[in-house]
């Protein structure tokens, strides 16, 4: 049964649960991630509702503290870090390099289950233990805390190993599984971004793992590794935590950037303005991103000298992102632009990411951060990047590859409509946060001065709008699974490799070896001029129809 799509290559539950097919693993990752997003989002909405009143009105401070911890932990580790790499990356990576699978398929399945176990432990710990430390687990609060941080530490630790294994797998896959003759500089840019992300995952996550273990040991056996009474230093905990967590923010944005690169090129039918610039900027972010962690600690009591070094290095890493933004923008030049939903999300991304990124530069400007540190300005900064940037790219990816994954089209009109809703809701939610931060509203505050109430109310209204638009999206995508029009192998007339196999792809990805004659961004010919090697693969699809 060579022609069966990966979806029909076995329909028992067992055939899914024990699959080693990267596509099925990707789909399962996607479902779990979306679930995490929904849970994390629900807690965000509860928080926003509570913040309608300056002193709250339906929870105690203790509950509120638990909720932002739940929200942060779930969004970061259960949703955002695995979202694009483990779901879309898994599905697309082999397709984009002409491989039959990732290098270690069994390990890949193991990553999925490790993630699942970690996620369950984390959520159970958050809910039952009532962890209230925030997602940063700062000592000594976290090691003295009467509530249980332990299960959460364990859960995040477990998820960390899932991330590391996925990273190892992807790095080896990109190095060793590329189709014969596929050179590095011919790889689709999404592959580069996943590759760079994997490097960070492999090198940063173990430091988090170790830090959490030390914290756990502190908590259980009272070893006091960071206890000032015994000569320890709580600030060192922060160093270790941010050595992981700053690179981790690039884990969250690099894959999104890969999505943007793909969508920009496909929907403007253009080669990237500078392929190499994007590649080097991607690697630059991954590597230099390791040297800026101290910018989270400008007011934490680190030395002025160290702070200065981190401030300067932060400026360097920002350049790479800027270069990418300029390259994407320039790619549109002389293209043939079709305003499909994914491209609209790309535009939203560009606008919001520049804002989010530039406010990153602003908070990296040391004297300014003294005012902003731990206020809603920072909350706004990172939601602009993580929601305005990454979630927007995630939605772009979802629409862009939906036909490839499911073989069906989503309804375009509704897509455009909810993209507008997402953008509007987003602005309404998070622009007020900048202003609140300027006013001096600290984060993780359940009670706040009354003067700040109007902005909070606006933000809450926006959050519900945003949630509504996301629900509509979810609704029509589910609808389209069944009723969407059949997509065909390449509905966007894209040149990228993954579109050169039927939609949905067969279980073994490629029936004939991937032809490399046409590059992934070669739009000099248009579609009418079929590329050699494209034809035979269209046939099975035709028979099916």
């Amino acid at each position: 049964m060579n022609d069966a799509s990966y979806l029909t290559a076995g329909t028992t539950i067992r055939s899914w649960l024990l699959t080693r097919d990267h596509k099925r693993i990707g789909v399962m990752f996607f479902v779990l991630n979306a679930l995490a997003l929904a849970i994390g989002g629900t807690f965000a909405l509860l928080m926003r509702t509570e913040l309608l009143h300056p002193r709250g009105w339906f929870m105690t401070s203790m509950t509120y503290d638990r909720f932002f911890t739940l929200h942060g932990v779930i969004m970061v580790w259960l949703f955002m870090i695995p979202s694009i790499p483990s779901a879309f990356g898994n599905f697309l990576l082999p397709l984009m390099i002409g491989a039959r699978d990732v290098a270690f398929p069994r390990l890949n399945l193991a990553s999925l289950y490790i993630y699942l176990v970690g996620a369950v432990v984390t959520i159970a710990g958050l809910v039952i233990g009532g962890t209230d430390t925030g997602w940063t687990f700062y000592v000594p609060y976290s090691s003295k805390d009467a509530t249980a941080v332990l299960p959460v530490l364990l859960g995040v630790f477990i998820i960390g190993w899932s991330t590391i294994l996925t990273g190892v797998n992807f790095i080896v896959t990109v190095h060793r599984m590329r189709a014969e003759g596929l050179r590095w500089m011919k790889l689709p840019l999404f592959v580069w971004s996943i590759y760079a992300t994997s490097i960070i995952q492999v090198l940063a996550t173990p430091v988090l793992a170790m830090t959490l273990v030390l914290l756990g040991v502190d908590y259980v056996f009272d070893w006091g590794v960071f206890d000032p009474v015994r000569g320890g230093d709580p600030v060192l905990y922060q160093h270790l935590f941010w050595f992981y967590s700053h690179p981790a923010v690039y884990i969250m944005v690099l894959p999104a950037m890969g999505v943007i690169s793909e969508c920009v090129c496909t929907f403007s039918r253009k080669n990237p303005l500078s392929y190499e610039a994007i590649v080097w900027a991607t690697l630059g972010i991954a590597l230099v991103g390791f040297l800026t962690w101290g910018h989270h600690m400008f007011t934490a009591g680190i030395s002025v000298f160290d702070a200065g070094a981190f401030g300067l290095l932060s400026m360097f890493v920002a350049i790479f992102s800027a270069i990418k933004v300029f390259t994407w923008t320039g790619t549109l030049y002389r293209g043939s632009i079709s305003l499909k939903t994914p491209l609209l999300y790309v535009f939203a991304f560009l606008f919001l990411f520049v804002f989010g990124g530039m406010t990153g530069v602003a908070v990296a400007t040391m004297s300014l951060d003294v005012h902003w540190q731990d206020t809603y300005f920072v909350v706004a900064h990172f939601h602009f990047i993580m929601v305005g940037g990454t979630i927007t790219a995630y939605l772009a990816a979802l629409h862009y590859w939906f036909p490839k994954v499911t073989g069906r089209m989503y309804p375009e009109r509704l897509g455009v409509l909810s993209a507008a809703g997402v953008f509007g809701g987003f602005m309404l939610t998070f622009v007020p946060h900048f202003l609140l931060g300027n006013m001096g509203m600290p984060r993780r505050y359940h009670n706040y001065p009354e003067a700040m109430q109007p902005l909070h109310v606006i933000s809450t209204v926006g959050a519900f709008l945003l949630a509504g638009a996301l629900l509509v999206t979810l609704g029509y995508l589910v609808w389209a699974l069944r009723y969407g029009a059949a997509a065909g192998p390449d509905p966007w007339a894209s040149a990228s490799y993954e579109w050169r196999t039927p939609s949905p792809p067969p279980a073994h990805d490629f029936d004939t070896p991937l032809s490399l004659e046409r590059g992934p961004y070669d739009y000099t010919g248009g579609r009418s001029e079929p590329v050699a090697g494209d034809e035979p693969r269209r046939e099975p699809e035709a028979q099916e129809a």
Partner: protein
Amino acid sequence: MAHENDPHDGTPQPVATPGTGVYVRSFAALLVLTLTSFTLSYAHLGVFGMPVALAIAAVKVALVALFFMRLVDEPASHRVAGVTAVLFVILLASLSAVDVLTRL
């Protein structure tokens, strides 16, 4: 279904190896360096004690990596993996220790 086009399946081919000599020589060098380091630790080198000990350790680890782990004749990607990891540990340790050292 997989094996039809690979005649070598299941029959590992002899691989080019560096030969026992390299291993023996590295081993000897490691022992000598260990002894040197041990002896020097009693030599009251003062502030230089630590750097010297670490330098010797670095040489030893290089020997292990290059010859025991065969980095000498492995693809560049393997070397990059090893070197990057060590580099990042150094960066992590130095940028956090610098903080402690330069606090007022």
